[in-house]
């Protein structure tokens, strides 16, 4: 299939950036990123600079890839990361607009790659459990209700890709932060530091310059792991009770 791609090119963070149009020939068997690889090989053969985009596992599990394709982070398919989008969903003659995630907290590094270290700093602020890692305990030593464990698992599925921020009209990171807080807050081991964690991570999230949540729910729609906004409600509760009732 012959495709027209309108891709955002930006040499560096300071460069203003612009859209460039390319034509590429792709087979329906290719994945979206393979199609971009084909484009890049053509550009290199013409001694031009290839399009920079982030990727790693190409399996939908690492959270590295992230392109906004025709206005949707990770493209049109539900619960699917960019690397798992295949060209059979497109047809000959299609025009595809490819942009990087847009948020003040995610400055563009080059072309389609953005700096998502803000997420790393949020995790460093409190997204962990402090335990002495000696010999592992017996798995059943600490009882946990099955539904709690299931909710925690669902929240833990978050791969930190940032599509939620990209999708949100306010560039809010609430879905991400709430997934990370929920994942730990629902587990007995996580309850010990729950209040400290909620406050510290929200504080860091605010410092990074993310927007505020208006419950638009575009995040849940675009999330490749289908994380639910019920986690946001949980973070709101955790934060409120921590603010009002924590020791510190």
């Amino acid at each position: 299939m012959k495709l027209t791609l309108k891709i955002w090119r930006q040499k560096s963070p300071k460069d203003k950036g612009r859209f460039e149009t390319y034509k590429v020939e792709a087979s329906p068997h290719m994945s979206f990123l393979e199609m971009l690889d084909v484009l890049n090989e053509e550009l290199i053969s013409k001694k031009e600079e290839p399009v920079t985009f982030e990727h790693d596992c190409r399996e939908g599990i690492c959270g590295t890839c992230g392109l906004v394709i025709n206005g949707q982070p990770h493209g049109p398919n539900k619960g699917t990361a960019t690397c798992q989008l295949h060209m059979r969903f497109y047809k000959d003659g299609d025009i595809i607009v490819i942009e990087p995630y847009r948020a003040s907290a995610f400055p563009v590094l080059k072309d389609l790659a953005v700096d998502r270290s803000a997420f790393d700093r949020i995790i460093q602020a409190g997204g962990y459990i402090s335990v002495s890692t000696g010999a592992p305990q017996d798995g059943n030593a600490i009882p946990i209700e099955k539904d709690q464990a299931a909710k925690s698992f669902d929240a833990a599925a978050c791969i930190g890709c940032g599509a939620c921020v990209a999708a949100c009209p306010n560039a809010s990171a609430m879905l991400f932060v709430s997934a990370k807080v929920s994942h730990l807050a629902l587990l007995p081991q996580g309850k010990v530091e729950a209040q400290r964690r909620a406050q510290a991570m929200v504080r860091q999230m605010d410092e990074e310059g993310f927007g505020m949540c208006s419950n638009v729910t575009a995040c849940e729609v675009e999330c490749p792991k289908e994380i639910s906004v019920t986690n946001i409600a949980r973070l709101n509760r955790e934060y409120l009770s921590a603010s009002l009732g924590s020791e510190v």
Partner: protein
Amino acid sequence: MNVKGNQSVESFHRRLGKIMWDYCGMSRNADSMKKYRKMIQELREEFYKDVFIPGSMNDYNPELEKAQRVADFFELGELMVVDALDRNESCGGHFREEYQSEEGEALRNDEDYAYVSAWEYKGWDQDPVLHKEELIFENIELKTRSYK
């Protein structure tokens, strides 16, 4: 970076991969591997003469990153064949066609080859030096597993 040749990093990666797949895959033999080692060395020389890496050295440059990995792969690929040639037995994922049982199963030689090979890099044009870490089993008797 200064080579400024004509071939992309990706094309070298693919060719290197094809050689590895054909001659140092699941099943190996001494003749093809000697040939393979030569092919690797030639391809590596071509890489350093004719690779093209776009962009600059001081920017975020994924092609440069890829080129560095492929440069490593050349050395690693050659080492794999040196190691495979040295180990004259079939053991685990290393299957030497010259050393198999009548039923086509792997034939180990524990007397001579019960060691871990640690190779010391001596430069491109030198053979690496083998350091053996002997495997001594005190409480277990070495046996052969049948996959039938």
